[in-house]
C-alpha cells in the first residue's frame, strides 16, 4: 500500500484530559493514516479509543479538554479550524459510523431525507442527480426495493440493514477517511460479516482510508493492514497487522492476544437418569391480543422445540439474531408463557400450584442478556446479591451475610464493592455481579443469556474463566446462550443451533464445530474467522470451514 505518500491524517502527541479531575484520558497519542489504508484500534474498555476518534472530527465533549498535541487532516489542524471549515470537512472529507445502528439514524426522518441531507449540503448536484446517486448506492448495499426504502423510516429495517444504510449515507459522499467505532458489535455473526464486506468493498472502490475501532481481534486481524493498541490513554504498541499479531511486544498486547477463547478438552459427565431440564415440543407465541374488532395474528417465536439438559452439563444455544434463543431461556425461567408443549424440571412439570414449584423457583436461575438493565440501578451490590437469599427458608441473617461475602469473593469483587451501585462499576464487574446473584443460592440450573457480549476481550476472558470455575466448583447445569462462536467453543459440552424458532442442528461441541451438517450451521461457522495461538505468544487467523478460507485468499 501507499506507505511513503504523505499521510492523510496524522495525530501528533495528542493529550486530552477531563476538565474537572484533570485525569488524562488520552495521553501523548500519535499515529497516522495514509490514503486508502485500513487501520484498526484495539484496547481495553475506557482506554480512550472513542475519544481519540471523535477528536479527529472535532467532537470533544464539553467535559473534556485538549492539553496539547495536534490533529492534522489533509494538512489542516482540526483543532484550530474555523467552525465553517470544520463543518465542510465533516461528512464531505471525513465520515463516521457509530457503534449503535439502532440510535444513529433519526427515527422520525425518512431514509431518503437522511441520505440526501449530506449530499445536498456538500455537493452541487440537482435533486434528480442526487436521487440517482442514492438509489444506486442503496442497490449496492443490497436493499431490495431502493425506491421504497427512500420513503421508509429506520425502524422498518433490521439492525443489519440499518447499519448498511448508515454506511451508505457516509459513503455517498466518498470521504477520504472513514471512522468506524465498533460498527458491528450489536450484530450477529452472519450479518456482521455482510456489513464488513460491504464496508471494505465501498471504501476500496473510493480509495477511502478507514480507522476502525473494535474489540473483535479476529475482525481487525482479518481486515486491517495496521493495528494500534491502546491502554489507559496510551498507545502501547502499533505496527503492521501480521507482525503485531505474530510477535506482540508489549505485555498488554500479549495479554490481549492470550485472552482469545480456546477450545478446552472434552469433559466427562456423570450419567444421570432424569435430565434436570427437559423441554418437549415447546411453542411460544407473541402478541395475538384480542381487541374488540380484531384478533391480532400471534407471532410464533418457537416452533415445537425439544431439549434436555443433563445435570452438570453446559448446553450452548447459538443462532442468528431473533432466532428465539432468549425466548427459549425465558420460557424455561418461567418469564414467557408457552402456548404449547411441556417443561419439566427435575422430572416434574412446572406449575404454580405444584409443591415442586418452589424447588424449581429456587433452583432455576438466570443471568440476563444485558447486565446493566438486569440490575436495579437503585440498589447496592450487597443488596442485589443478597436479595435471592431472602426467600431461602431457615437461613439466618449472619449466614446470609457470610454467603454474600463468599460469593463476592468468588467473583473477585470482595472488598469495598458491597456498598457500591451498579453504575459505579465497569461492564465486566457488572457482569460478575449478575453471575454472583444467579449463583448465590447455589442453584442446580442456570440460564446464561449472552453473558459476555458486551465485554472487551480481556474482561470477557476473565468472566468466562470465572464462570467455568464456578461451574466446576458448584456443579450446576447451564443453558448458555450466545452468538459468539469462540466463546461457545470454549465453554460448551453440547451445542444447539437455532434458526427462525426451530432447532436445526444439535450435537456435541466437537461434532458441531468440526463436522457441521446443516447449511445454517455452516454459514454461521464460516462467517467470521477465529484466532489461534501460534504457541510463542502470537496468534494467527484461521477459518473454521474451508469455504471461509477461500474468502481469506481473496484479499
Amino acid at each position, binding site marked *: 500500500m501507499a506507505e511513503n505518500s504523505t499521510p492523510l491524517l496524522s495525530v501528533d502527541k495528542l493529550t486530552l484530559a477531563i476538565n474537572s479531575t484533570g485525569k488524562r484520558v488520552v495521553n501523548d497519542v500519535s499515529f497516522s493514516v495514509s490514503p486508502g489504508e485500513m487501520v484498526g484500534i484495539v484496547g481495553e474498555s475506557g482506554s480512550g479509543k472513542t475519544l481519540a476518534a471523535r477528536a479527529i472530527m472535532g467532537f470533544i465533549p464539553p467535559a473534556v479538554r485538549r492539553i496539547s498535541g495536534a490533529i492534522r487532516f489533509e494538512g489542516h489542524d482540526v483543532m484550530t479550524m474555523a467552525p465553517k471549515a470544520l463543518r465542510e470537512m465533516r461528512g464531505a472529507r471525513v465520515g463516521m459510523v457509530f457503534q449503535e445502528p439502532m440510535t444513529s439514524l433519526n427515527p422520525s426522518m425518512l431514509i431518503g431525507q437522511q441520505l440526501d441531507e449530506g449530499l445536498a449540503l456538500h455537493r452541487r448536484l440537482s435533486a434528480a442527480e442526487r436521487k440517482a446517486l442514492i438509489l444506486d448506492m442503496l442497490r449496492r448495499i443490497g436493499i431490495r426495493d431502493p425506491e421504497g426504502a427512500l420513503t421508509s423510516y429506520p425502524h422498518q429495517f433490521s439492525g443489519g440493514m440499518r447499519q448498511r444504510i448508515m454506511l451508505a449515507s457516509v459513503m455517498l459522499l466518498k470521504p477520504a477517511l472513514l471512522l468506524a467505532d465498533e460498527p458491528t458489535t450489536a450484530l450477529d455473526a452472519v450479518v456482521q460479516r455482510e456489513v464488513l464486506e460491504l464496508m471494505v468493498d465501498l471504501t476500496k472502490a473510493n480509495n477511502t482510508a478507514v480507522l476502525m475501532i473494535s474489540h473483535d481481534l479476529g475482525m481487525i486481524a482479518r481486515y486491517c493492514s495496521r493495528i494500534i493498541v491502546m491502554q489507559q490513554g496510551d498507545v502501547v504498541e502499533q505496527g503492521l497487522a501480521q507482525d503485531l499479531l505474530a510477535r506482540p511486544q508489549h505485555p498488554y498486547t500479549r495479554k490481549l492476544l492470550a485472552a482469545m477463547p480456546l477450545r478446552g478438552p472434552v469433559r466427562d459427565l456423570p450419567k444421570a437418569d432424569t435430565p434436570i431440564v427437559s423441554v418437549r415440543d415447546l411453542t411460544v407465541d407473541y402478541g395475538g391480543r384480542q381487541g374488540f374488532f380484531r384478533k391480532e395474528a400471534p407471532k410464533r417465536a418457537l416452533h415445537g422445540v425439544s431439549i434436555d439438559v443433563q445435570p452438570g452439563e453446559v448446553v450452548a444455544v447459538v443462532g442468528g439474531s431473533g432466532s428465539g434463543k432468549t425466548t427459549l431461556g*425465558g420460557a424455561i425461567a418461567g*418469564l414467557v408463557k408457552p402456548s404449547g408443549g411441556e417443561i419439566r424440571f427435575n422430572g416434574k412439570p412446572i406449575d404454580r400450584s405444584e409443591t415442586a414449584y418452589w424447588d424449581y423457583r*429456587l433452583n432455576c*436461575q*438466570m443471568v440476563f442478556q444485558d447486565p446493566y438493565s438486569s440490575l436495579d440501578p437503585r*440498589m447496592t451490590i450487597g443488596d442485589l446479591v443478597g*436479595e435471592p437469599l431472602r426467600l431461602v427458608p431457615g437461613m439466618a441473617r449472619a449466614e446470609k451475610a457470610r454467603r454474600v461475602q463468599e460469593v463476592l469473593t468468588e467473583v473477585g469483587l470482595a472488598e469495598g464493592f458491597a456498598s457500591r*451501585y*451498579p453504575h459505579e462499576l465497569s461492564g465486566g464487574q457488572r457482569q460478575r455481579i449478575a453471575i454472583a446473584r444467579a449463583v448465590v443460592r447455589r442453584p442446580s440450573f442456570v440460564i446464561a443469556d449472552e453473558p459476555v457480549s458486551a465485554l472487551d476481550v480481556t474482561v470477557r476472558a476473565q468472566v468466562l474463566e470465572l464462570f467455568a470455575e464456578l461451574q466446576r466448583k458448584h456443579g450446576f447445569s447451564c443453558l448458555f446462550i450466545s452468538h459468539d462462536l469462540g466463546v461457545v467453543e470454549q465453554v460448551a459440552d453440547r451445542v444447539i443451533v437455532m434458526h427462525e424458532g426451530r432447532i436445526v442442528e444439535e450435537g456435541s461441541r466437537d461434532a458441531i464445530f468440526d463436522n457441521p451438517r446443516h447449511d445454517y450451521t455452516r454459514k454461521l461457522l464460516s462467517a467470521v474467522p477465529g484466532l489461534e495461538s501460534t504457541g510463542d505468544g502470537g496468534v494467527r487467523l484461521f477459518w473454521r470451514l474451508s469455504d471461509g478460507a477461500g474468502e481469506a485468499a481473496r484479499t
Partner: protein
Amino acid sequence: MKRLAPNALLGGFLIGTLIVVALIGAVWTPYDPLQLSFRAKLAAPSAAHWLGTDEFGRDVGSRLMAGAATSAWISLLTVTLAVVFGTAIGVVSGYVRGWFDRIVMAFNDALLAFPGILLALGLLAVLGANKYGIIAALGIAYTPSVARIVRGAVLSLREREFIAASRVMGNSELFTMARHILPNCIAPLTVLATSMFGYVLLAESALSFLGLGVPPPAPTWGNMLAGSRPYIGQAVWLGIFPGLCISLTLLGINLLGDAVRDRLDPRMRGM
C-alpha cells in the same frame, strides 16, 4: 461529586430563603398579621410598613411571612397526598395490567375529566371549608395525573430486565413492586412533585378568586393574591408582593427539581 450548576444554586437559594422566612413567620412577624387597623388602610409601602397594608390595614409583609408557612404547608401536604395515592394507583395499575388496570384507569380518567372547582366544592362541602378541606380537594384533583404519569413510567419499567430478574428470584409481585418498581419511579416523581407544588399554590389562589379558598383572614399567598384583585388600580402592591413570592418560589422549586432529577439520574451521576 460534580460541581453544582448555577441554576441549582439559585434554586437552592430561593427555596432556602422561603424555608427560613416560613420558619420565622411561624413564630414572629413585624406586625400581627391579623390585626386590623382602620387608620392605616391601603397604605403604600413606607418605612413603617415596608410592603404596605391591605384593605383592612393589615401589614402585607407580616401577612406574607405568616402566609409562607400556611402556603408551604398546604402545598406540601397536597403534593404528598397526590403523590402517595397517585403513585400507589399508578404502580399497581401499571404493573398488574389487565382488567384491573382498565377499571382503575377508567375511574382515573373520569376523575381527570372533572373540573377541579367541582371537586373542590364537593369536598369542601363534605369536609368543611378549611385548610384540610382544600388540601383534600386539591390532593384528590391532582391524584389522577400523578397516577397517569407514574403508570406510564411503570409500563416501561416493567419491561426492564431487573423486573424479570426479580421474578426469577421468586419474589412476590408485591415485593417486586415495592422494592424494584417504586424506587425507580422516584426520578420522574421528583420532577412531577416540584412542578405540582407550583400548580397547587396557584390553584389555591384560583379557588380563593372563586370564593372557595382557605378561610381568610388567615393569610395564604393564594388568597392574598386573589383578594388583591379589586385593588389593582388603587394599591398594586397588594398583588405584586404575593405574586412575586409565588413566582420566585416556583422558579426556585423548578430549578431545584431539575437539579434533583439530574442528581438522581445515574447517567448524570456516573460522569
